[in-house]
């Protein structure tokens, strides 16, 4: 298993009030498995990805990522685990504006234990069709090209799991299909699991495993935040 979640509860605090945003009894993702999570906005899909990435600490429950219990780890250990095994792809790509495409890709492996070479970054950029745009900065790339750089950045450190939060949210349908196909193909090639969060039916329908977050998160089945 790459992800094993049991009895997960996540709270948000606003002033003196506490809201429960996630309540998931059980959820698993196998090695090299590709999962699409669908659900309405505000249903907690991104929160789940943040918990898996170790950016949010759950109130209760067990979250095992790549064989390690996340809830028992300190922040630095979670950072190291994220650096070593996880990669994140955002809706807005979050490329560093001052860095070229190749530098943005290399940055993806800067904090991981493994040594990603410049050659690996070049190969990946070639794979995503940007071999000719290595030294272009994000502002000089189209939206679709920026997302491809983000995919190459995610893959460069050879992670065991890629988390993609609305990766096609900024793309038109044609480019969205292309990016999802590229992402799935690349994950298969590099043998890493993929969790894609999306509210776009076209994206979700491309996956064999489609999890409806409205059913997964008991907060939603109970009718919203508590």
């Amino acid at each position, binding site marked *: 298993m790459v992800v094993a979640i049991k009895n997960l509860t996540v709270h948000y605090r606003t002033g003196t009030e506490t809201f429960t945003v996630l309540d998931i009894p059980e959820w698993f993702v196998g090695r090299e498995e590709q999962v699409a999570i669908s659900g309405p906005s505000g249903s907690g899909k991104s929160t789940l990805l943040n918990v898996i990435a170790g950016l949010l600490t759950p109130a209760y429950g067990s979250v095992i990522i790549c064989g390690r219990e996340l809830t028992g780890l300190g922040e630095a250990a979670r*950072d190291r685990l994220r*650096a070593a095994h996880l990669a994140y792809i955002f809706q807005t790509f*979050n490329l*560093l504006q001052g860095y070229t495409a190749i530098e943005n890709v290399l*940055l993806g492996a*800067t*904090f991981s234990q493994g040594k990603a070479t410049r050659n690996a970054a070049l190969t990946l950029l070639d794979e995503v069709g940007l071999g000719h745009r290595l030294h272009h900065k994000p502002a000089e790339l189209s939206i679709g090209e920026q997302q491809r750089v983000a995919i190459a950045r995610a893959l460069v450190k050879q992670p065991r799991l890629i988390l993609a939060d609305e990766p096609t949210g900024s793309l038109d349908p044609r480019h969205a299909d292309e990016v999802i196909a590229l992402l799935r193909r690349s994950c298969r090639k590099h043998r890493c699991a993929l969790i894609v969060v999306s509210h776009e039916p076209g994206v979700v329908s491309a996956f064999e495993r489609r999890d409806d977050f409205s059913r997964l998160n008991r907060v939603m089945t109970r009718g919203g935040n508590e």
Partner: protein
Amino acid sequence: MNFGALVIKSLRQHWLSTVLAMVSIALGVALVNAVVSLREQTHRSFTEEGLGVDAVLGPKGSPLQIILNSMYHLEEMPGKIKWTYYRKVLNDEVVANGIPFITGHCYGGFRVNAIEARFFSDFEFLPGRHFSFDPVDGGQGRMFQAHDEAVAGAEAARSLHLQPGMSFNPVCGVNPGGMVHRDRIRFVGILAPTGTPHDRAIYIPLTTFYTLSGHSSEIQEMAVNEERREISGAYLKIKRIRGGALHPGIQDLKYNLNQSSQAQLIIPNEVLPQLFGIIGWVDRVLLGVALLVTLLALLFLFVALVSALRERRRDLALLRCLGATRRTVFGLILSESLFITAGGAITGLLLGHGLVMIGCELIRVETGLRFSAGYLSTADIYSLPVILALGFFAGLIPAIQAYRLGVLNNLKSIS
């Protein structure tokens, strides 16, 4: 991409504030370095070396004025002393040697002093060092022998393009505009550079002074009548006791002479520190200004780092998301601060030595004192560690802010 590359990349991204912070630190350090170096070299030159003179016998008046006139060719001598009195002092048991001189003339902006020829052979311009005319040392010609011959110091010769064989007319008074004597005096020697104020003087024979045309008959008579002869003063060499220390009897001699109404004995090493007491505030103010500039530069660095951090919250949050720990981003900001301060300090040290080089040249031209741009001052030793420590503190608060940065908040605000 390693940690160092990230630091450099980040600095390059904010190159303008990086360069401005570095330049302002460099200017501050350069000023501190130059002020401290020139101050220390001046102090050492005026107080420690003593220019080879143990004591000066001079007329009544300001001891500091007499020292500045006799040893640095500045100011005017406040009066004259009797030759017979000088001879009497010369016979004192603690006095080893004496060289009488007369000041009060000039040529081309340089002082013309009348002095005995022994000055060139016996006088030590620095402890243990005598004048040289040897071309190997940079000198030319020989010491004067006839009454119409002169010797020029190295700087005077260089500045006035003097060569042996050329001649000049001395001017009465220490400032240009006085009566020009009709006597043509021929240069027969140029002294090798000494790095002392003696490089800035022209020397004529002692008796020549009295016989210069235009001087009154009373002065003319002094050339032959020792009873009536007057001099400006005399450099005295005092006998030594074991360990090279001055004969303790010098204090008795000084006391006795200072009780008289005719002359006084001045020990340069006792008087020159007074000069720094008088002008010390100037270099303290300069040093204060330089330190203020440095502190302002560090404040600028702090402001630059804090404002850059505001722009970089998303970037840093993204680095955290990519796996950078809190300590990594803390180290990143602190390293940038240290890099800027180190760069500024090193540039400042080099620039400071450049300023000292310019200052040395100006001081050499004005006083004849030779300072070195390569002099290692206290500022050279302490600048880098002190500035790095201050740079560490300037970077500490922005680094702590970066450490505390929330990942999700700062990524969410953009997406």
